[in-house]
């Protein structure tokens, strides 16, 4: 029997029991469908998170104060942490490969301007922030170069939303605003940048880092972000930063966080997420497999007399095995295909109704899902197909 005829014969059997076959395939369909939708969401979240973290550029590393270490001597002097200062930031600027540095201090303040007042986020930063984070100005200019040192002038730049809230569409340039009682002159307004992980960058006010430290009565910065040349090697760069910082602090009381490390951590979290998603899909596929197993058993015992006939017509046991196996595979792969179609359209529908939900379909997973469906059919079909192949011809022919 040619493979084509064999396949057609199996297909005919599947089609003959449309209702039964489709109900059985439904198990696989649901499994594959959920795998497709869940992996699409998983993929989407991954791309989303990565783009959230890289929207400020990929060649940034952070220097944060403090280091997690365990010391042998409690309360000893070597355990003390020096604060990160603006001078540290200036020094890092001179490390080879470093393009720019941004000191960072963050807090919550009351801003008064245009006879209105609003509590908002204050970000103490330096003149190079727009360059490093790829911010653009809507009006005026950003903090001047002297904002990076200790003698900065009291100037401020508004985020797009804060500007809207306080001034509507009025031009605020040159206006004086009060931040927690101190007066600042508005130099510029940023274009909208959006949120990063729920933090609204537009509903913020930006002032020189030194002023923010005074405002919050802080000794040091919360961190220093370093933009480095895309051609510089991270390893060399980290070495250079360590050299400068160790010379200034005497000990490693700071932590360098590279974006690679951050993405690595995220990646492993997302991998676990994907794995659990695959687990959920896997369970429903197993349920589907049991359905196929059951239905193939039923088919074998219902069609006992047909098996007898086929044997009498000279079909070898091996071919009988293949016939029932291919029926099981046929049901499973059709179920899988339907699952793919439903899953893909489901993903698109989800995207239409919940645009915020990041969804990305990964074709690799789709192919994998269909292969799994076929494999499931094969495995589920083996036992009943073997039963069919081993059947006694005379007994089978006698069965009505």
């Amino acid at each position: 029997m040619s493979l084509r005829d064999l396949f057609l014969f199996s297909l005919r059997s599947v089609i003959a029991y449309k209702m039964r076959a489709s109900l059985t395939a439904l198990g696989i369909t649901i499994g594959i469908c959920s795998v497709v939708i869940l992996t699409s969401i998983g993929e989407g979240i991954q791309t989303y998170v990565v783009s959230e973290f890289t929207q400020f550029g990929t060649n940034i590393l952070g220097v944060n104060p403090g280091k997690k270490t365990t010391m042998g001597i409690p309360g000893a002097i070597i355990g003390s942490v020096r604060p990160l200062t603006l001078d540290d930031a200036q020094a890092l600027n001179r490390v080879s490969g470093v393009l720019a540095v941004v000191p960072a201090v963050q807090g919550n303040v009351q801003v008064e301007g245009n006879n209105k007042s609003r509590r908002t986020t204050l970000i103490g930063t330096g003149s190079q922030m727009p360059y490093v984070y790829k911010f653009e100005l809507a009006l005026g200019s950003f903090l001047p170069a002297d904002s990076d040192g200790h003698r900065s002038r009291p100037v401020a730049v508004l985020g797009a939303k804060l500007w809207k809230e306080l001034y509507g569409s009025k031009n605020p340039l040159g206006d004086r605003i009060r931040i927690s009682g101190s007066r600042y002159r508005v130099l510029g307004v940023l274009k909208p940048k959006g949120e990063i992980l729920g933090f609204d960058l537009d509903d913020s006010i930006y002032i020189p880092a030194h002023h923010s430290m005074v405002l919050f009565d802080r000794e040091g910065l919360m961190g220093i972000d370093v933009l480095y040349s895309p051609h510089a090697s991270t390893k060399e760069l980290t070495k250079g930063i360590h050299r400068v910082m160790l010379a200034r602090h005497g000990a490693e009381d700071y932590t360098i966080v590279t974006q690679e490390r951050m993405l690595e951590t995220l990646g492993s979290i997302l991998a676990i997420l994907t794995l659990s998603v695959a687990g959920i899909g896997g369970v429903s596929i197993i349920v589907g497999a049991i359905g196929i197993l059951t239905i193939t058993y039923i088919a074998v015992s219902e069609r006992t007399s047909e098996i007898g006939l086929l044997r009498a017509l000279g079909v070898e046991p091996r071919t009988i095995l293949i016939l029932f196996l291919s029926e099981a595979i046929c049901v499973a792969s059709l179920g899988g295909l339907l699952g793919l179609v439903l899953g893909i359209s489901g993903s698109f529908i989800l995207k239409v109704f919940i645009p915020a939900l990041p969804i990305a379909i990964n074709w690799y997973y789709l192919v994998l899902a269909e292969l799994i469906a076929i494999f499931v059919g094969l495995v589920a079909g083996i036992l009943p197909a073997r039963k069919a192949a081993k059947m006694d011809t005379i007994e089978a022919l006698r069965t009505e």
Partner: protein
Amino acid sequence: MIHLDHISRIFTVGTQEVRALDDISLDIGAGEYVSIMGPSGSGKSTLLNLLGLLDRPTHGIYKLQNEPVSSLDEEQQARIRREQIGFVFQFFHLIPRLTAFENVELPLSLNGVIKEERAQRVRSILDSLGILDRASHRPDQLSGGQRQRVAIARALVVQPAMLLADEPTGNLDRRSGREVIDILEDQNRKGLALIVVTHDPDLGKRARRRIRLEDGQIVQDIRNDQTLPLEQ
């Protein structure tokens, strides 16, 4: 064509041995018309199953076309069934989801005949049995007589050397039964060896050679209305 040499078929039921066929020797030539009769449990069906290579003898040698076939492996036996033996059953054994045409086509597909040739051969055999107009009907849309004719067409389409019929009229009314017998005898006249197992004495009598089994032994072997001595 068929040569059975001291064939026995012993079944073990529990601890008891049942001799379904007890030391049978028999020769059937090409183109013969043989009826096998006998009471229930006499071994008729066992003999037919052995002849059709659906079963193996416990003792003895079965030669088909001078070739010992009872010792062949499953695959070789399947091949002989596929190419040389046609079966007709009491309950037709048509595949319910396939049309008459597809049921008849099945053995040709099994033999790897190409599609164009299959269609042509199926049509011609259905035509010669007068059921071409029923080609696209499924078995449940056919009468009993038509079903058996489809089954006969399926057996004949591979042009076998012998046709084994187990109660071919047992499930049919008198008229359809006679039509089926007509078809079978017609094929026999064209050179096909026809072996019919039946309870029906009217049908049995029609055969040129009549074999009677009792308790697994041949008790009578009559040819041309002339009683032949028992082979022993």
